[in-house]
């Protein structure tokens, strides 16, 4: 079996997919990064090797950890999340015009016309309304995240919660709880607040035409979907592999590129003992944090400096 590997190393979760030559999803995995992207990637690769042991013809990586993943695994194409999500959405739904993507730590709005991205925006100031916050609130209420999303659907009168800032939203929530509102109404109110926050921050001045796709981890939460539909008065479509869309996009990009010879370093990566460490360069007052990946004692990658003093060293080591 052979295929194209797509990897999306997000802030909270890591996604790995294998696509066939025709762009069909052969295999996919979705797991928590837990702050240890290297180990999670190794485990995911090991699982893929064990289950399918495919030969890889191309690798695409995306997500906030794309640099790390590219260095570790050897990628043919390294793309930002916005392009990756747009590509897979276009593949999934040919006429898509708007993509709402909410992940662990950031949210994006992508506007597409005639199958080309024409505009996008991304949260800058605040992470209110992203997966991490919802998860935190769920655990504070002692619920699983699945249960949390569903319970919003049973609300009769959603309360109004200030959603401008996560910290204030939380204190407002506690206040509403103590006033005696029931849990379902509070959760539904929270979903509404997050949707309002998203639309105020990202959608200002942008026309959200249908069809609208909703992807990323938060799409698993039906409460948010319903809140979006209520606010926009438009239908929201959740694609089947909503949480894997970024990774699918990355591998589609690799597929589109069709590298003659892939840079993939092979499945042996997962058995190596890789360690990452970082230090602050004191060459100038910028004090860049430099990240170093070691395979045993040997440095295999280094990045993070502005001037290239360390990352260019890496080139001399590798070549």
């Amino acid at each position, binding site marked *: 079996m052979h295929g194209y590997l797509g990897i999306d190393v997000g802030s909270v979760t890591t996604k790995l997919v294998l696509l066939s030559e025709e*762009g069909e999803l052969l295999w996919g995995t979705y797991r928590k990064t837990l702050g240890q992207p290297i180990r999670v990637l190794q485990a995911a690769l090991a699982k893929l090797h064990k289950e399918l042991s495919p030969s890889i013809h191309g690798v695409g990586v995306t997500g*906030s950890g794309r640099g790390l993943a590219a260095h570790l695994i050897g990628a043919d194409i390294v*793309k*930002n*999340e*916005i*392009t990756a999500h747009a*590509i897979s959405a*276009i*593949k999934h739904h*040919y006429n898509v015009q708007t993509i709402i993507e909410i992940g662990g730590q*950031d949210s994006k709005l992508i506007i597409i016309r*005639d*199958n*080309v*991205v*024409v*505009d*996008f925006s*991304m949260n*800058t100031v605040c992470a209110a309304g992203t997966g991490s916050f919802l998860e935190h609130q769920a655990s504070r209420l002692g619920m699983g995240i699945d249960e949390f999303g569903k319970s919003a659907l049973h609300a009769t009168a959603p309360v109004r919660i200030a959603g401008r800032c996560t910290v204030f939203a939380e204190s407002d929530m506690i206040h509403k709880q103590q006033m005696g509102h029931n849990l379902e109404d509070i959760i539904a109110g929270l979903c509404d607040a997050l949707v309002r926050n998203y639309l105020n921050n990202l959608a200002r*001045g942008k*026309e959200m035409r249908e069809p609208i796709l909703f992807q990323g981890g938060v799409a698993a939460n039906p409460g948010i979907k319903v809140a979006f539909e209520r606010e926009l008065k438009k239908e929201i479509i959740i694609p089947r592999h909503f949480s894997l869309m970024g990774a699918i996009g990355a591998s*589609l990009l690799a597929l*589109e590129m069709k590298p003659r010879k892939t840079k993939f370093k092979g499945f042996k990566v997962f058995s190596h003992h890789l360690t990452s460490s970082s230090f602050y360069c004191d060459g*100038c*007052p*910028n*004090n860049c944090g430099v990240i170093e990946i070691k395979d045993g004692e040997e440095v295999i990658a280094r990045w993070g400096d*502005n001037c290239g003093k360390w990352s260019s060293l890496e080139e001399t080591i590798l070549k």
Partner: protein
Amino acid sequence: MKLTVPHMGLLANAYTNVLREHGVNMHPPPKPTIKTLNLGVRYSPEYACLPFKINLGNMIEALEEGVDSILMPGGYGPCRFGYYSVIQENILRRLGYNFSMTRTDNPDSLADMIKTIRSISNIKSKKDGYLVFYLILMRMAAFDKIESLYFRIKPREINRGETDRAYTECVKIIEESKGYLKLLKAFNQANSIMKDVKIDRKCRPLKIGILGEIFVIIEPFANMDVERKLARMGVEVVRGVWLSDWLNDRFRFKPFKPHQNRLSCKWAYPYLKYPSGGESIETVGKTLKFYKEKIDGVIHIMPFTCMPELVASTILQRISNDLNYPILSLTFDEHVSEANLQTRLEAFVDLLERKKKKKEIVYAWLSGN
């Protein structure tokens, strides 16, 4: 007297040597770094903009190095900037520094500039004052010309890093030239060094226009080196705001060069009828001009809490919708994350590339048709 002027791009390189020759003990502050910014942020009002904070940090660093006088432009306009020197002086005095602050009271008046230059140097006659000021302006113009060449050549270079090396050399050559004739010679030499860089003539890179607030555009530290980041991605940067143009609009040292501000007013007229402070009219006007010149897209750069550019950015959103023209607005302050910026830039470049190529065959195939 040991004099300093805060950094703004290559401005310090333009005047330091010239003024030194005329008996001014010039001591430019160290180039802005994270340390500068941290110092500036610690002592600035929270809602002051990034240029204010970097300026203040620069001044503190210079004072720590033993400087005892500061020269800072002031007066009215173009925005809150006019009051900066007053507030900065106040803050520095409260921090316990002992120094004298010279400010130019009228930024538009040539006579005032010359008076200031004569008051800090040993230049006797008015005529010499004019000549020295002219030399500084011409140097700035030379730097700007070389930088615009850099942006044109960098995405087309064949040997990676050659353009950067050539550029550093050129800046040094111009900086070290003495007098007007030597400057012309140095400029010609720099020009030919830049043109000797091997380029791929068939390369047709994406073109992105850079517009917005002048300080944040000109000082690479303030914008996290957006322009060079883009150039490294293979994009040709077309900068719409140059310090020498700004100065030429005021002092007309190149009398035949068009008045940028007046032209921008004309271009911007359908969307903005009169200047609303700062560079807002140029941002709007030149966006429309770039659109006509078929520049692929525009990146609009401004500091957080910048009122004039905020006005422009709202208008740009409308222009973008009306003309279907890609515009990305970037706001800078001390909280901007590098990763977030990188993602935005990459996504914007992808957007333009895909829009240009419209890989229809691939898309048709992706959709399964």
